[in-house]
């Protein structure tokens, strides 16, 4: 799975914000706020990866347990899929 193309992401204040561009801006209006984990995963899932690979990347980068990383990835994928940002 991967995050759909057609967004730009920048640091805004203490968070990151993604906004749609081009054709993506016609189907989605507004912005997406990303916390640190979400921003990491957004960037990671720009390329095609499995959830397991996401968990591995999280545990290798942050000081988190397998369990925490699994929850993090699963929440991210669930939320992004619900909003139609993943394919």
């Amino acid at each position, binding site marked *: 799975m991967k995050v759909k193309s057609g967004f730009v992401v*920048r*640091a805004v*204040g203490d968070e990151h914000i993604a*906004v749609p561009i081009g054709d993506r801006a016609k189907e989605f209006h507004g912005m997406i706020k990303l916390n640190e984990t979400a921003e990491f995963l957004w960037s990671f899932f720009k390329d095609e990866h499995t959830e397991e690979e996401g968990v591995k990347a999280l545990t290798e980068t942050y000081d988190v347990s397998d369990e925490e990383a699994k929850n993090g990835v699963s929440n991210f994928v669930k939320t992004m899929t619900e909003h139609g940002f993943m394919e």
Partner: protein
Amino acid sequence: MVYEIAGLKVLFKNKYKFTNAYCEKYLAEDQNSYDLVAEATDEEFEEEKKQSPIKNDGYIENICLYRSLCLRLPDFDRFLLHASIVEKDGVAYAFLGKSGAGKSTHSRLWLKYIDGARILNGDKPIIFYDGKEFIAYGTPWNGKEGMGYNGSAKLKALCFIEQAKENKIERLTTSEVATRVFTQLLLPSDEKNAAKTLELVDKFITNIPAFVLKCDISEEAAKLSYRELSKAENF
């Protein structure tokens, strides 16, 4: 004709005369050079016409021209902010809120109760980041009541207005400001200007103190917001 808006020279390629009269006070002295061109495509015109079918064609074109200009402002370190800007002692204060929240009403309270307060722009000012400070500019697009003037002032604080029975003002965190301010911006959909908008908003919300004012329409509400906003410092 070339107009000088928010310190930029803009060539409007309008078909209808409406815009010439509407922007009269902003006509540039030198008509021979410009920074950017704004025009309404047929597609944009038809789309806008669908939104406001009862308006005349000159008005529709005028709306399209302003949008066309605003979508390219980030590249010039500027952006459109949907807000009412009040100027007092050369300092600008921005009131924001959902439609009907009372930003115009609160601005008028300042005119009535705060000595020397003037409305710089009642609806669609342009904000310019000069690398250090944010400057609010009046524009011809100043809302239904046409309140505003061709001028500018350094922006000191943002204040989101909400109606309430009692008057209370609270400081907002940058995360809260980000959520609130995005609904009051025009987001370009080309990559360069979209990215630049985010970069400007980052500077904006980390540099300008922001508040939420829950208020009625009394003198006390205006005095409270003036007192807190005029002494606001950044974190």
